[in-house]
């Protein structure tokens, strides 16, 4: 070590004896008097800002991932999933309804026939109300979706015509041929005008569920990688900052930065795990397409991010705070 090897000594106002201490004075802007170049404060501020930025990015990424998962889950659990269920149930009700109309128009007489016919009518009526209710639910579920709503309204109209034909058939009960003709027309209408649109509506919902699940998984995957990358960069930045402090300020460890580093180390796998779990639930819900499994998975996928979604951004904010706490006294030395 050259103990006193400094810059070329020169007489200045502050150094009237030109002692020439080994102090490297950075060039200053002649206009502002501020030091130029990469001084230590700047070398500290830059990675600190980078760390804060990366922490924010990390948090945002995690939030984005969770939000995506929640959006998919919400789509499945609250929109496409329930409608698909209604459609499926409506299809079943309508099938039972149509089957029950055959007994109504069956020819015969006698009390037994009459009793059977009354029972059939009563069953029809009950199923009709049930179908109508389901149909109204379907119409309500399609609110906001013009195409589905149009189909639902068509279903409602065709269901009315169906009931009209069935009513005519019931009115022609003493004329079995006429009634049966009307019942056949109604069955044809059922199969052509009700079952087909219902199938289309079910197909649309299945597509939406698949899309929601797929999108959610994609977002989860992307944000997972993003979080991992941001977390890794953040860790690297914090480590570099720590090394810089150690080298430039001869301080081996900055405790605040160490805590921040530890936080990031915990936060990254937690976030990854969170996103991966949400993505798995969503995938399961998507694969079930309909039914209770789908609904439960969807609800889980929606509920879990709600609990944990706050952790990554909160952790990122904590990291920013820790970096600031760690560097504030060091930077204050240079003021």
């Amino acid at each position, binding site marked *: *070590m*050259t*103990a*006193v*090897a*400094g810059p070329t*000594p*020169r*007489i*200045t*106002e*502050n*150094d*009237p*004896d*030109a*002692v*020439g*201490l*080994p*102090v*490297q*004075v*950075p*060039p*200053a802007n002649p206009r502002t*008097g*501020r*030091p130029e170049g990469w*001084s*230590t*404060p700047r070398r500290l501020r830059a990675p600190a800002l980078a760390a804060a930025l990366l922490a924010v990015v990390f948090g945002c990424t995690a939030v984005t991932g969770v939000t995506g998962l929640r959006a998919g889950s919400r789509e499945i659990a609250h929109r496409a999933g329930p409608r698909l269920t209604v459609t499926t149930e409506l299809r079943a009700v309508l099938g039972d309804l149509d089957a029950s109309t055959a007994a109504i128009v069956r020819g015969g007489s006698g009390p037994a026939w009459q009793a059977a016919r009354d029972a059939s009518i009563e069953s029809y009526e009950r199923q009709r109300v049930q179908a109508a209710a389901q149909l109204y639910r379907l119409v309500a579920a399609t609110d906001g979706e013009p195409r589905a709503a149009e189909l639902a309204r068509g279903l409602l109209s065709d269901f009315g015509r169906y009931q009209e034909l069935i009513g005519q058939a019931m009115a022609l009960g003493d004329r079995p041929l006429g009634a049966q003709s009307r019942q056949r027309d109604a069955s044809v209408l059922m199969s052509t005008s009700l079952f087909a649109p219902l199938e289309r509506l079910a197909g649309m919902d299945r597509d939406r569920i698949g899309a929601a699940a797929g999108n959610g998984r994609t977002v989860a995957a992307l944000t997972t990688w993003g979080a991992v990358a941001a977390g890794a960069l953040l860790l690297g930045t914090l480590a570099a900052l720590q090394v810089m402090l150690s080298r*430039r*300020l*001869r*301080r*081996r*460890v*900055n*405790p605040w930065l160490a805590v921040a580093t530890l936080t990031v180390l915990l936060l990254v796998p937690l976030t990854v795990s969170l996103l991966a779990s949400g993505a798995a639930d969503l995938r399961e819900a998507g694969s079930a397409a309909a039914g209770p499994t789908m609904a439960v998975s969807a609800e889980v996928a929606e509920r879990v991010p709600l609990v944990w979604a706050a952790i990554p951004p909160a952790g990122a904010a904590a990291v920013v705070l820790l970096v600031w706490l760690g560097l504030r006294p060091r930077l204050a*030395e*240079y003021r």
Partner: protein
Amino acid sequence: MNHTLALCADNGCGGAVEDGYCNICGTAPAPTAARVSTPWRRGWHGGGRRVEIARLVEGARRTGAGPPGAGRPNAASGPNPSGAPNTPGRTNGAGLSNTPGLSNTPGLSNAAGASAAAGTSGTSGPGGAGGPGERTVMSRRGTLGAGLVAMPHVPRRDPADAIMRDPQVPEGRRFCSRCDSPVGRSAHPVRRPARAPGPRPERSGRTEGFCPRCGLGYSFTPKLRPGDIVAGQYEVLGCLAHGGLGWIYLARDRQVGDRAVVLKGLLDSGDTDAMAAAVAERRFLATVQHPNIVEIHNFVEHFGAGYIVMEYVDGRSLKNLLLERREATGESLPLPQVLAYGLEALHALGHLHDLGLLYCDFKPDNALHSDGRLRLIDLGGVRHAGDEQSPIYGTAGYQAPEIAESGPSIGSDLYTVARAMAVLSFEFHGYTGRYRYSLPDRETVPLLARYESYDRLLRRATHADRRERFGAAAEMAEQLTGVLREVLAAEDGRPRPARSALFEGETAPAGTRGGLRPAPPVMAAALPHPRTERTDPASVHQAREHVERGEFGRARRALAGGGTDWRVTWYQGVLALADHDPAAAERAFDRVYDRFPGEAAPQLALAFCAELKADLDAARRYHRRVWRTQQAHASAVFGLARVSVARGDRATAVAALASVPTASFFHVDAQVGAVLAELRGREPGDLGLAELLTAAGRVEALDLASRRKRRLGALVLESALGQVLAGRPLSLGPGAAERLAADEVLADGVDALGSELDEHDLRLALERTYRELARAVDDRAERLGLIERANAVRPRTLT
């Protein structure tokens, strides 16, 4: 005087003995015991004045006189330094102290006017005579060396020992005073029969006779004998020496307290030149009253012969001193001693010049070191400055080259002084031959190489062009004094400050801060201004005003007209220096230095020029010389330190700066500079512990503003840290690091007395110091740098 005419005792010689010597063959009579037993001796052993004489002699012995009979004072003997023939008996004398009852000013004996000795040429005898004037007792005893030089003690001698037992002039030195032909020689051996046994005898040369060439009569026989009373007043005691114009006698003035006097007789009374010389002495010398010039008491006649009565000077001629030293040590006289002699000689010559007289024949033979002062004797060559008729006396090797054409002048007198100093100060081989009118190259003479100012002084004083020499003895003495101060300072390292008559003091020394070479304009502004008067050229005044204001351009225009005044040259150099043209500046300053070799200012200016030319050796030489002599020039010590550091000689730099006296305005800056010179930019392996401790102590002792002190403290701590990191144990003494850090921040380990400082303590102290410095500065960039350094050197910690 009774003249006993008798036949010559020499067989075969028909001459008659006249005044004791054959007037044909010059055979001297055998000395008799009665003659050796001089009246002085008689007075010593008995007689009416025995007590007084005994007291005188005893007094002389007490003052350090050598044993009686130690030798005849002033008798030049031994080899001449130049190889030229010696001049025994020329202008020498021995003396005794003054008469009792008077002051203890020694009675002085002298032989004046003996200018026709060998080596001295004269075309005719000096004319004029003058009676002795009123004697003024001037006490300048011990002033030799101007109070600067401790001169060797020249012991007094018993005047009786100065008397020649057998007063004879060796044949080899017998010359005709008119044509310089050899006379009185044993050139005609006695013819004897071939069968006669034994070596063929030779006949002694005649002491009296006639020159075979020009027919002028000569006599080398003393005309006075011991016991003779001259002019009823002066009792002859014996012969002291034989000079070119006759025998020189020691006598006792019976009317003035038996004081010792010297009678200088005229040997060749028939010689008009000799007579004229004697008359000239009488005329001029009666008006000369100077402590450095022998005093003429009287002029008397005795049996038709004239005698000058002079004071007796007890001393040794410079030539004798030189020869004795050469014989004892093989060396010439010490330069300070020579310069002191030169100063005294210049004082004497200056007095003569003020009287309108010229000495003409100064040389080591004609100056006696006597009783703490130099005395000029032999005034036979003295003449009026405007005198174009009188003969010119001079000595080869000393005389200026233009004498034959334009005659003597003040410049030629000063020339002789410089030549004499050269002969006395170094082995001046060939000064009467090859270097008769020149000096050897400086490089060939170690003394001249060592003392450049002395060399320049000699060269100016002996310049071939009389107009280039010193204009007056006072001017030369002024410069000689400066050179003497310089030489003395070089000898013992003690400064010899003196106010310059030509330059003002330094007003704004350059380079006092930071050990950095100042910019040329700063150097130029730091140079002393020549003293000016109203009568000086206007260009000089204008140039000075502009230079003082830093208006170099205007100063340049003011000097555009040029001029011969040396101050114009000086300011031309100053402007060239300010214009970053050190070569031109050096030429100008060199001319000024040539002109004033005893001045420090031109040397300081040359030091600056050499610095700018990166001639570090020359810069160091000039700076050191100036500072060593004149500590008033602070620029020089800082320059010396600066250049020494640049040459890697930190020890010299530190020593120079440490020599700045406490009372100096720049003491603190010098102390700071010493710390910087010691530590700044120094590798740990190159720094000794003692140096570091010295620097640390210096910083501790400094009464500085906290900001300056903290920076120096940081420098010391950085150096200490470097030492520790280099694996060298270090101890800064009790609490030193704490004080250097100006805080109590250091760890406990430092508190122990003399404990070793560890790296942690030093780093901690340094960190604290840098942070305090950072808090004190306004400049953000510098503050940033200081904090960076604080963080860089702080001890490594966990958090």
